[in-house]
């Protein structure tokens, strides 16, 4: 279970082995000529060993930036502006690049988005898997010999559900699903205990998507690894994850167990997200969430969701909501902060504050 911010802050920074990954008040900013874009702005969560955590949000919510920051793969003009990322107890934020390289693949591995573009087109699949293994041989450790390598590749390909003969093929000879399996084989080649999967099945057909997610689940159970799944498909989250974190405009707005959040979403954004899911119910109209996510350079004052929120009230324009613990979950919304304003009594009538996108009203 993901514990919430308050608990995280009070916990000791060093050697807490219960969590595979602890992210504390992480800030990732991009310096642009027009100002600083706060792509990830004060996000905290914990990930236990063996837990499957899904981070959802629309494009631009900062979920991929967060995943890349955890892998320490943030590129210019982005930089980690504050906070901590504890990986198996060690803070990686200020770790030198050389040390990070010895952790990647051994402790944390990335299953990238669109494996078709992340494989080298002129290298055989087997060679690409060896590449990762050889590149992460620790100093003083003897590199594996030829027969060990062959055995390792054979074993990895079988584990991801591929024929061992695939090792001799080039990426263009593989289908999209097979390429994604190769990317998974590379990711698990050194038995990491944290797997970051950034939209691993976008652009794949539903049946292949299901097979890839189920394979990933099987690998995760075998390694007893923690998985951070980044995506926008709530269906996949419901099928795969134990816990869910909903991001909006760079902040986590709700965190909780998957059954709890799907049954009883607290944050108005999560509620709309779940209501707008397509279904096979013919009588239901296809609804979207009105409006668009605000530009991160130009966030509205107060809660970033206030232009689209159906239960917006006066306080939402003044104050950024704190992340509050409720019922073993966490939510960042003034509706649940009963100390100041009783919940469910919006000062401004519902819907009044919605600035509908012209596309929707047209």
């Amino acid at each position, binding site marked *: 279970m993901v514990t919430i911010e308050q608990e995280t802050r009070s916990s000791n920074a060093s050697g807490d082995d219960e969590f595979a990954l602890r992210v504390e008040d992480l800030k990732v900013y991009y310096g642009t000529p027009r100002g600083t874009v706060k792509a990830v702005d004060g996000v905290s969560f914990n990930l236990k060993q063996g837990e499957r955590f899904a981070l959802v949000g629309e494009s631009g919510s900062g979920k991929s930036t967060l995943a890349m920051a955890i892998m320490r793969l943030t590129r210019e003009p982005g930089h980690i502006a504050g906070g901590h990322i504890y990986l198996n107890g060690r803070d990686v934020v200020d770790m030198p690049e050389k040390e990070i390289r010895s952790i990647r693949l051994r402790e944390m591995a990335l299953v990238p988005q669109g494996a078709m573009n992340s494989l080298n087109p002129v290298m055989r699949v087997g060679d690409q898997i060896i590449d990762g293994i050889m590149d992460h041989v620790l100093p003083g450790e003897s590199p594996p010999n030829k027969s060990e390598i062959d055995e390792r590749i054979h074993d990895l390909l079988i584990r991801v559900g591929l024929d061992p003969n695939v090792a001799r093929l080039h990426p263009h000879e593989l289908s999209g699903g097979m390429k994604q399996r190769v990317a998974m084989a590379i990711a698990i080649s050194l038995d990491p205990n944290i797997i970051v999967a950034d939209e691993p099945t976008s652009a794949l057909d539903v049946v292949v998507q*299901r097979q890839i997610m189920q394979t990933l689940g099987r690998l995760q159970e075998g390694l007893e690894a923690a998985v951070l799944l980044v995506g926008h498909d709530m269906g996949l989250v419901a099928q795969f994850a134990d816990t869910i974190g909903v991001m909006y405009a760079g902040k986590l707005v709700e965190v909780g167990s998957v*059954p709890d959040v799907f049954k009883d979403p607290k944050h108005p954004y999560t509620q709309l997200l779940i209501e707008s899911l397509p279904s096979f119910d013919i009588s239901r109209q296809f609804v*979207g969430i009105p409006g668009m996510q605000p530009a991160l350079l130009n966030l509205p004052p107060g809660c970033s969701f206030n232009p689209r929120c159906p239960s917006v009230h006066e306080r939402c324009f003044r104050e950024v909501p704190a992340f509050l613990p409720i019922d073993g979950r966490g939510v960042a919304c003034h509706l649940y902060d009963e100390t100041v304003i009783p919940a469910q009594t919006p000062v401004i009538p519902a819907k009044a504050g919605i600035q509908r996108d012209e596309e929707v009203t047209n």
Partner: protein
Amino acid sequence: MSEFMRLDHVTRTFGGGAFSTKPPIVAVDDVSISIDEDEPKITTIAGESGSGKTTLARLLMGTIKPTFGTMYYRGNDFSKLSRGDSWKFKQEVQSIYQDPFGSYNPFYKVDHVLETPINRFKLATSRTAKTAMIEEALAMVGLQPGDTLGRFPHQLSGGQRQRIMVARALLIKPRLILADEPVSMVDASLRATILDSIRRLNREIGISVIYITHDLTTALQISDNILVMYRGSVVESGAVERVILEPKHPYTQLLIESIPQPDPDNKWGDEPPTPRFEDFSSMFGCKFADRCPHVMDICNEEQPPGYRLEQHRQAQCYLYQDEASEMEDPDLASIFQDRRAELNV
């Protein structure tokens, strides 16, 4: 009934020429369908990538020719059309593509894509008539001419660009629109408006629509009929709500089961098998036999014929050989006919 287009046992293969070491890839395998003009409908062609759905659409568009079989346009053999008929065909069949940006030349204002077909097909006699036509078409798809005309493509949102493409298709007054994944690159919140404008073209103006997609949820929402393709064959077809809500072919069942339902209490079953043969040209029988949970001996011997399971549904599967009769005419027109009267639409 007057028949607009008909594919008669059409097969299309790629590659595998005299000097090729590999067998040809069969993209569309012996498909017969017809599109009727009097009863314009929205027909979905669904299937995974490589199932042949886009090839089938390109055949209907006339951009590629069948390897075997014949294609008819208003009763005439498509390969022997006269110049005039060929010109008319280009006017009567229009398409909307997946990428709402790729369809525009970024150096021209969006007016260009709307004016070109009018000029090309000489649809308007005067400048005022042309403007009126464009404005009418934009209104039909729910756009304000003032917001869109005179702008460059990059100044418009993806949803607006895609709706201008719908307006363009509409200007030419086609009889058939082929929409190839028209909403897969558009934000979810704008999908509804685009699908709605496509539906209005069908319901209000009576244009037949072929909607190509892998998204069965939107297929159920807008279409009347569906063809499910797998490895080039139409494995199941019929009334959309019957096929999607109660799939009969094991492939359709797998497809629908695999849609990730946003319900933590309703999880996927066991991991389905991956295809044993990537190259299915060597398979004699049913092309789904290597993955099918109900596979029988006969499935590996001969390709199953279509069985008529209900008045408005057929499936190519031996599971139904005892309970249903073989389709006499493989043309799916009889499956799709007369649905309007029945549904009181």
